[in-house]
């Protein structure tokens, strides 16, 4: 293999004029983290609502929840990204569509919405599984004490369900973080996009993607450490 290794490349100025290649990658990393966190807020809250809908006795609520989940988890993420970015502004009324297209950081907002809605369908299934894994008597006990349905979910079912599904939710969070890389296709300058441009500018493909890989792994390790601490913090004495 005829390849000129150059690990010093990271300290060389990037062709963008400001900063080094390392700065370029780190700016990509910060977009990755921002996108992951913002989309997770949507994914977690919307996913919880959808998951709860699917456990309610109401047939209408079930239908809404099921329709949502099946729609968003059965269309490839890449396709969803394109739909949000290229198709949605065209089907909106002209002025709104134009405004959306001219939005500064449009790829960021689009990626946040797209990932949020996509991951919500997956979170919803975890939440549903968590709630359904609880003994039926738990909901009955809450109801028998005079709790409304909302209070039963708020004080009894969800606190227990979240504890049970914390490990798979952590995986879901990690997936969401890695899925941000799909947003490079709509122009978000996140970590993978930055590694690619570094490779194109400098031809140091191995260095660029080694650095990106290490950064992804490091950030995921931080997430895992955080999740482990959280699991320990919410663990119930003498219980699950």
């Amino acid at each position, binding site marked *: 293999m005829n390849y000129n290794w150059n690990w010093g490349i990271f300290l060389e100025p990037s062709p963008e004029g400001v900063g080094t290649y390392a700065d370029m990658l780190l700016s990509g990393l910060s977009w990755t983290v921002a996108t992951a966190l913002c989309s997770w807020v949507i994914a977690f809250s919307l996913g919880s609502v959808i998951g709860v809908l699917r456990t309610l006795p109401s047939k209408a609520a079930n239908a809404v929840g099921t329709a949502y989940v099946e729609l968003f988890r059965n269309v490839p993420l890449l396709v969803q990204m394109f739909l949000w970015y290229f198709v949605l502004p065209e089907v909106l009324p002209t002025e709104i569509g134009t405004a959306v297209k001219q939005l500064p950081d449009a790829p960021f907002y689009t990626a946040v919405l797209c990932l949020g809605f996509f991951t919500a369908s997956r979170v919803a299934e975890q939440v549903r599984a968590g709630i359904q894994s609880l*003994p039926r*008597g*738990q909901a*009955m*006990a*809450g*109801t*028998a*004490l*005079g*709790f*409304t349905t909302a*209070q039963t979910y708020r*004080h*009894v079912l969800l*606190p*227990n369900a979240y*504890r049970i599904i914390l490990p798979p939710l952590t995986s879901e969070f990690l997936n969401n973080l890695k899925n941000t890389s799909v947003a490079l296709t709509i122009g978000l300058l996140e970590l993978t996009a930055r590694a690619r441009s570094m490779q194109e500018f400098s031809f140091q493909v191995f260095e660029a993607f080694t650095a990106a890989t290490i950064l992804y792994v490091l950030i995921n390790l931080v997430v895992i450490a955080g999740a482990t601490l959280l699991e320990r913090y919410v663990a*119930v*004495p*003498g*219980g*699950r």
Partner: protein
Amino acid sequence: MTSTPMPAPAAATPTAPTSEAPADAGLRAGPLVTPPPATATAGPMIAIEAVSKWYGEFKVLTDCTTRVARGEVVVVCGPSGSGKSTLIKCVNALEPFQEGQITVDGTRVKDRGTNLPKLRARVGMVFQHFELFPHLSITDNLTIAQRKVLGRPGEDARKRGLDLLERVGLSAHAKKYPGQLSGGQQQRVAIARALAMNPVVMLFDEPTSALDPEMVGEVLDVMVGLARDGMTMMVVTHEMGFARKVADRVIFMDRGEIVEDATKEAFFGQPRSERAQQFLSKILAH
């Protein structure tokens, strides 16, 4: 079996000097099980009238009619699958029923206008599998519904919860979690949790069936104490010793029907129906 001794009621210590009479004075002194004033002073506490229920095609309750008077202790027994648990869950509308009507303390259970959460808050229920909330400490288990449903201030709820915990003999465990208690202890906490809401009536759905034999006694002791204090109780159980000791009436169910509804003396003396006789001979044989 002995009844759990009551805590000395006289030693109610005022927590803070208050000028106005504390609204919850009744909680601190007096017997802990005194229910709040009933909404309807006349009439039975529970009236079950011609209740029928289906699970799809399958009829689980057929034309059940009975009454529980104020202060009465009624034991419901029968073979498994006879519908006794279903019937008791209909009383606070945990299970819907298609025909008939149930009236609890003057409030119709099957009525669009009835505020079911409000009704259920006045009906204590104890489950076979305790159903304490595993993520909450014993204290929080005892106070959460008082605070969130009755709107009691935290300190009052805590005081009442801890008083009741003492009554069921578990004061030392206030800070523990349900998973750290034995089954018998959990069930006693569950009884205290229901009592904390000042219910007008208590429903028990096989409260000792999931317990190890050596823990049955401690739970029954608490229930006997409650009965002796005058609590209105409807108890689904196979504990015929309990029925003999405190029941006023015994209802025997089979295949979704109330086959026998008699005073304790009549039921144990000479059950009229053959099915009840067979059931009794089986259950009392050992």
